[in-house]
């Protein structure tokens, strides 16, 4: 599974403002041994590239750069692959322009 690296999403996210709710991620990936096609799709579909593979080839999520768009919810929640919610009030991405 090769994820598009030509565009550095990290640089894009760098200009955004976030208030990270440390230790309280609002999205969780269900424990799995082999990722489902839906989970694998998130590696590419997430516009903030929050999803990545760990060294055991399992899908992990790091929500720090999440823009709360809901794409992963639409793809991954119906299959039970992820649990999706909003950050606590006031936390998360803070758009200056939107």
């Amino acid at each position, binding site marked *: 599974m090769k994820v598009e690296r*030509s565009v550095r999403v990290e640089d894009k996210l760098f200009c*955004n403002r976030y208030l990270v709710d440390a230790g309280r991620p609002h999205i969780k990936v269900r424990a799995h041994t082999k990722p489902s096609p839906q989970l694998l799709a998130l590696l590419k*579909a997430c516009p903030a590239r929050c999803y990545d593979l760990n060294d055991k080839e399992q899908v992990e999520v790091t929500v720090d750069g999440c823009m709360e768009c*809901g794409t992963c919810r639409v793809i991954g929640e119906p299959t039970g692959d992820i649990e999706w919610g909003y*950050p606590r*009030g006031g936390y998360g991405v803070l758009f200056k*322009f*939107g």
Partner: protein
Amino acid sequence: MIEERFDAIVVGAGMAGNAAALTMAKKGMKVLQLERGEYAGSKNVQGAILYADMLEKLIPEFREDAPLERHLVEQRFWIMDNRSHVGLHYRSEDFNEERANRYTIIRAQFDRWFSSKVREAGATVLCETTVTDLAQDAYGRVIGVRTDRQDGEIHADVVVLAEGVSGLLGTRARLRERPKPNKVALAVKEMHFLPRETIEARFNLNGDEGVVIEAAGTISGGMTGMGFIYANKECISLGIGCLVADFQRTGRTPYELLDRFKRHPSVAPLIEGSEVKEYAAHLIPEGGYKAIPQLYGDGWVVVGDAAQLNNAIHREGSNLAMTSGRIAAEAIFQAKSRRLAMTKENLALYKRMLDRSFVLKDMKKYKDMPRLMHTNSQNFFLTYPQLISKAMQTYLRVDGTPKTEKQKSTLKSFVNARSWIGLFGDAFRFARAWR
């Protein structure tokens, strides 16, 4: 726990929620509005074109102090292939009017202003508060909400769900389905800053005049989607959105698509040398009329994007949100002033009023469009743009080929690509869906 009881609780301080809260507060109702962002607008993303008429119905004098960017004097539609675009541009001096019809705005700033009007009208607005659940009684009637702020519930006669496209509360309470990958588009967007004069020179503008560009074609790589470029005072909003199902199917990444759009030879010169100050992403409801859920029930109504009230063909959403919010509020007020309970039966008035408005009439007009676009995305977003571009080039290049031959070869390229049956079929289906 907030001990007070409210006439209405509005979830969300976006376009729909603000319209609803403002309308009810102005009529003297006791309104609580809850917003999860630090301030209204801090979670919201839009292109953004503001349609004045729908806002004027809520705040007639909005032009005096609303944060507006530019009034639009020109609209461009671009059909793009990888190296060219064929454009339809409409520009009119008539749009330089005192009460302009359309403006560009910056949503985070606009929502903040809109929210200040809601407060002035007397509503209680609580930001930094995520509503986690709807409170329901034993009969399933909605009686209030639960938030992440204080334990306990806040009660009201009616809850207005203005929670936007993801609509977590309504789906958790099984009032409607969660959005499906083929019914929502993911849009990514950047804010490009440039000196004012540079923007005005590049877009051919005087003073506060504005231009917007809507673009479709090979930029979406065969997926159902569109790009946009909107001129603001000192920045340019630029973005592209495609169906989530298409991203899932193709494995293309949203940021790569956005970057390709930015590098397109027709787009790159417009943003050259700019400083990007924000990268945002948001879903857009694209399911159309057939995706509209049940709009009311015992103790609740749903408005705006949460109700899929979004006209993807005309790129209108915020105005449908504002209008549905206002109409829901008016229906609630009518029920209240007649001392009727907020039951499903009585709240059906909202739907009847919405049926009579442009909101559901427009949605209904294009009821077959989403399916047509989604099932024919390769043709509409790849094949035709390429053919049209080639036809234009053949037509414009002067190379000694007789015109009749040029026309023949152009026609042949269309027939080869789509066959006569395909061409007629596409034209027929398109005309029928547009009708």
